[in-house]
């Protein structure tokens, strides 16, 4: 029988007990995560107009805008070796993966406030459950992407099998950011609005619509953007097989994986405090 001791001490006052409880909750969160994922997948389009088609319509629409910009001459992107629509679509699919992973904890904790406040459900279950939806979205968009690649008769290189590593790296980066913001978002409701502005700006400084320029201020900012090498290289793995910044991508990927673990532990501590504001 599970015995739980709660005191007024901060969780990190007893690190051994803290890590034991993290591991215990992670294990016990799996059945609930499956239940939440099952429920979300069934119920997420219950009151929607477009239904599940929105998963693929959204990246297609963003791609269509880019094509329109390029055709009208607003965007001047000539130095790519693959069809431009394909270039953009791969970039959009990778970008939306990052965004979905970022929103999973932010929206998850907001949506499941009642469950967290009125039960002793582990927060891990909510994040893992929401990742189920993220995974399905990736599958749906990946399928559409595959169809578009076949449509353009672009040969898929063998390096494409490594693309999931890039996807996982971007998802980890997004998840880390989401985990940091999620508890703060429970306290201050304008955080999610600020996030929309920040991610919109971030989008235009990421190599989605165009590759990172090698010179100029925009190029310098884009090189500082941590997702630039990962996004560019993952796209290359899928479309051409020629990666350009492998060492930076690997470093960022490892950092992303590590940051998920650190941010997870941060959520364990910070969420318990932030949830009290919801209770009150």
């Amino acid at each position, binding site marked *: 029988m599970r015995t739980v001791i709660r005191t*007024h001490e901060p969780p990190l006052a007893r690190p051994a007990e803290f890590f034991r409880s993290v591991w215990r909750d992670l294990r016990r969160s799996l059945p609930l995560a499956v239940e939440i994922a099952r*429920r979300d997948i069934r119920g997420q389009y219950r009151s929607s107009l477009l239904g599940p088609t929105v998963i693929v319509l959204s990246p297609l629409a963003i791609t269509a805008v880019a094509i329109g910009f390029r055709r009208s001459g607003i965007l001047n992107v000539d130095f790519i070796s693959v069809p431009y629509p394909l270039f953009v679509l791969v970039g959009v699919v990778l970008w939306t993966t990052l965004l979905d992973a970022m929103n999973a904890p932010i929206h998850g904790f907001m949506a499941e406030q009642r*469950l967290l*406040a009125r039960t*002793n459900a582990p927060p891990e279950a909510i994040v893992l459950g929401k990742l189920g939806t993220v995974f399905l979205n990736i599958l749906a968009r990946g399928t559409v992407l595959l169809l578009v690649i076949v449509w353009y008769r672009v040969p898929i290189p063998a390096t494409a099998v490594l693309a999931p590593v890039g996807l996982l790296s971007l998802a980890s980066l997004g998840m880390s950011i989401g985990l940091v913001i999620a508890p703060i978002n429970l306290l201050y409701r304008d955080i999610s609005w600020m996030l929309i502005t920040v991610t919109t700006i971030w989008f235009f400084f990421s190599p989605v619509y165009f590759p990172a320029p090698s010179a100029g201020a925009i190029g310098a900012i884009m090189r500082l953007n941590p997702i630039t090498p990962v996004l560019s290289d993952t796209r290359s793995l899928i479309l051409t097989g020629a990666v350009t910044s492998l060492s930076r991508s690997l470093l960022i990927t490892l950092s992303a994986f590590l940051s998920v673990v650190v941010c997870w532990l941060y959520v364990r501590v910070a969420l*318990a405090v932030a949830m009290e504001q919801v209770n009150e």
Partner: protein
Amino acid sequence: MGTSGIAGKFRGSRTKPEVLVSVRGAWRKFCHDLNRSLRYTALDAAQSLFVRSPIGSTLRPGEFWALRDVSFDVVRGESVGVMGLNGAGKSTLLRLMLGSLRLSRGEIVTSGQIAMLSEHGLGFDPRLSGRENVYVAAAVLEISRQRVDQVFDQIVAFSGIEEFIDSPVRAYSSGMRARLGFSLAMHLEPDILLVDEVLAVGDLGFQRQCINHAQRYLKGGGSLVLVSHNPHLVQFICDRCLLLDHGGIVYDGEVVEGVARYLQAARTPPTDPLASDASISGVPPRVPSAPANSSVEILDFGIQPVGTETLHTGESARVYVRYRSLRSVDIRWGFCLLTCDAETVITCEGLLEPFPVLAGDGELAGTVPRLPLAGGRYALRVAIMDPHTELPFALGGFHTAPRFFTVGADTTIRDNYRMFTHDLIALEDLKWERLDLGATEVTESS
């Protein structure tokens, strides 16, 4: 445990009571001001990442203690009623036990699965159907889908919402949510069930079912902590009562006594600046002077026990008026007993025959051989009248505060009922009878 339940859940020792909840010196504070509260929460969250010593265990500006130094145990199979006026800290205590609130000081140890049943069921999501919520709630309690499948039909049948089980919970009435939540809790059988003022929302039939199932759950080894303002439920379900007042435990013991104390507290107006009660303060009330040109003035008045230390239902009581008369006059006098809000007159009694009083101070008194008032708090007014004009010489408690007094009652279920139903009169020595007008015994065939 009932046959409908998931059998074999409880493994409690039969020899030594197994403590499932141990609360030791629990304190919890809140902040009045929202912005300040947000700031404190953000600060606490940041500090808890880097600080190992306890944080925030003292009050900061704007904070107050919602719970103070609460300690008690709950053993397996025990049901504890938690009563108290609004703001006493009952729900805070439950959330601390559940773990959704942090302690400001102290320690709480729980053993086994713990669930809280509130107005939101077992943490129901209003967007989801009743069916989906059942499976999510079971997953929180680490009960597999297969095990839930076995009892799902019984859960729905007991809740009585078969037609709506696939409708979103937001479309449910509060009674339907309570039924589904209670049914789920009784069939999933957590080791410890915390119930926050939810059973009373159901109809009487549902409440009867709740009592029966709760008793079966307790016999099977479950433990129940019931927060309720409903003395009926507490008396029938619980075998122990905690009474909270301003965040502290003021009584922990036998349930009938606890309910009686709660009802006494509930009947006492929380703020009554004009009232004074000699039994509490020992200071007599200010009595108005006699009307101008009146020859009689009331110095003091009140009601006091006869032969006992306190006023008590069925015991003798004496109403008295101390007066000062400037001359010898004929008077009549009487008194009124009123509800404690001084709005409803329970009875007015008076000595109809005029009688003379001499100049100087004196006392008038009337003895009630067996005080018929039910336990509770009441008010008293007195009047000394001119028998010739029927106009008052002096009034006590009409234009100023009446004299408030408390009548004690026995600590019995019957007396608790009287207080619960706001009885004013306690009829004693009733003769009850039953007449069988051609009735015959009918037994139910199997």
